[in-house]
């Protein structure tokens, strides 16, 4: 299908919205009625047509607006994109991976013409048509990592692999769930995950790292992660927390359906060919509670997950104070009927919500 790009904002008047198409393909992250951290990784080998898993790097209706938001974040704070000196080659690897994938997966939107090291890149939605010399930084307006990730949705961490560990040595991070690239750059896998509760004790990071170190070129992997955001703000950075933190206190029983968003990250893992670095795209999808509730299965399940989530996780994810109000809202969409396994909405087979006695 051809994508109709939304003209919307992720700040100020928050005109962000999801079309019916975007709601239907939203990556609801709970495959059962409860949630706990696990080593939830699988191969990233496509998925159902139209789903967010189908392409290597999903492009959706929010593309242009997200890229506009990224440019604004970078203008305010250039430290959101950094690359340690030894990571330039990995930046070129990433530029190649994204250009090749996007031009093959979305030929009507992107073109890549290669003649030796002379490359022409055409990004039709963004109106870009650039010719440059591959591996020659002087021929691009930014470094290769920054150039290409100003044109690709989601955050990007580029990990150097050495000493049986991964090192966060480069990245483009403007839509993060409250962590700082500027602070974490140069850390290893265990250090940047240090603030996460419970998962270290469960041995999750030791097993996850082992898996990641063995990812081969051409065999990417993926997992989902999620958190909560009041208002569809993409830049939930610690840098700006003193500005956006207050928004958490603006929820009311009247506006929660429209204001409270579930924020899901599709995280993928690709090995890069020349540098042997690993790239970790973190693609965030936002969906308001009221849009989620249009799928009966999601309504029932979200209530149960949020209700039973361990306190440590609700605190870490930053919504412990708002959990009671969320549950008041969500409980109206849970009539106690069983839900089917898996994350897909199944709006055809799942029974509609049974109206409760008092409504």
């Amino acid at each position, binding site marked *: 299908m051809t994508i109709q790009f939304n003209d919307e904002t992720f700040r100020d008047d928050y005109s962000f919205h999801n079309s019916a198409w975007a709601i239907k393909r939203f990556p609801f992250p709970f495959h059962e009625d409860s949630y706990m951290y696990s080593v939830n990784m699988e191969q990233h080998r496509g998925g159902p047509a139209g789903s967010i898993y189908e392409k290597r790097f999903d492009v959706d209706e929010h593309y242009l607006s997200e890229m506009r938001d990224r440019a604004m974040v970078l203008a305010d704070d250039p430290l959101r994109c950094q690359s340690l000196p030894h990571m330039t080659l990995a930046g070129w690897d990433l530029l190649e991976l994204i250009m090749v994938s996007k031009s093959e997966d979305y030929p009507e939107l992107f073109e890549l013409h290669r003649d030796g090291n002379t490359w022409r890149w055409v990004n039709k939605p963004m109106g870009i048509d650039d010719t440059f010399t591959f591996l020659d930084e002087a021929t691009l307006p930014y470094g290769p990592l920054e150039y290409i990730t100003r044109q690709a949705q989601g955050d990007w961490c580029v990990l150097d692999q050495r000493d049986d560990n991964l090192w966060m040595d480069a990245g483009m991070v403007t839509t993060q769930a409250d962590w700082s690239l500027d*602070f974490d750059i*140069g*850390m290893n896998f265990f250090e*940047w995950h*240090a603030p996460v509760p419970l998962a270290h004790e469960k041995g999750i990071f030791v097993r996850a790292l082992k898996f990641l170190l063995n990812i081969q070129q051409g065999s990417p992997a993926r997992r989902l992660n999620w958190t909560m955001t009041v208002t569809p703000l993409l830049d939930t950075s*610690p840098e700006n*927390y*003193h500005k*956006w933190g207050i928004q958490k*206190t603006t929820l009311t029983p009247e506006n929660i359906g429209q204001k409270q968003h579930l924020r899901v990250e599709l995280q993928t893992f690709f090995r890069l060919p020349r540098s042997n670095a690993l790239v970790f795209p973190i693609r965030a999808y936002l969906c308001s509670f009221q849009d989620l509730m249009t799928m009966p299965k999601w309504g029932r399940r979200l209530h149960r997950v949020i209700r039973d989530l361990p306190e440590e996780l609700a605190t870490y994810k930053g919504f412990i104070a708002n959990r009671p109000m969320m549950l008041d809202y969500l409980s109206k969409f849970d009539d106690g009927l069983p839900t089917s396994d898996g994350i897909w909405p199944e709006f055809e087979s799942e029974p509609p919500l049974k109206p409760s006695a008092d409504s």
Partner: protein
Amino acid sequence: MSKFEFPPSIKSRPIYGTLEPRKGPAHLLIADAVGAEAIIEVATPEMMRTAHIIYIPKGTEFSEKLRALNPAQYYEGASYAASVSRIHKVLGDAKMGLQVYLAGTEGMMGQAQLEATNAGIPHSAIQLEHRGSVARRMQCVHCKGITEDVEVDPFVCSHCGLNLFVRDHYSRRIAAYQGVCIDAEDLGNVPPSKGIYE
């Protein structure tokens, strides 16, 4: 002087040991304040023949005892900032096998360790022993300014003036812990400060 036992913490937080004499062609020993005591304990006459001691007294009186160790080179700096160009030079000139001993406050050790690793000194050749003040070197995640020697939590950022709480998350590249606004969700509601480990 007894050593402070840091409580168990998260994985980015540094841990410190006890200095031990090691074999090597040259030895660089850097201490601040009562960190001098750890140097006095680890020093051997053999080590001192090729040792360079850099000492930042911060009002303590260990100069004479350190000089009496008879190191090949001895330097006293008025502050870490005043000493850092010398430390940088010594590390840059270092030959293979240099042994580095750091003793004193976390802020000094973190910064000197960073100088050493940037100069290519392997981690295995750097030892750290905490002595004295448990104050932290803090980076404000909002304005990026560093506040040295923070003893209480919360504290006021010396650059932007926000009220920050003291996290255990630590960056070796910045040689600092992270400070985050404590009253972002309830402006002006700042609990009274207390000692970081109280």
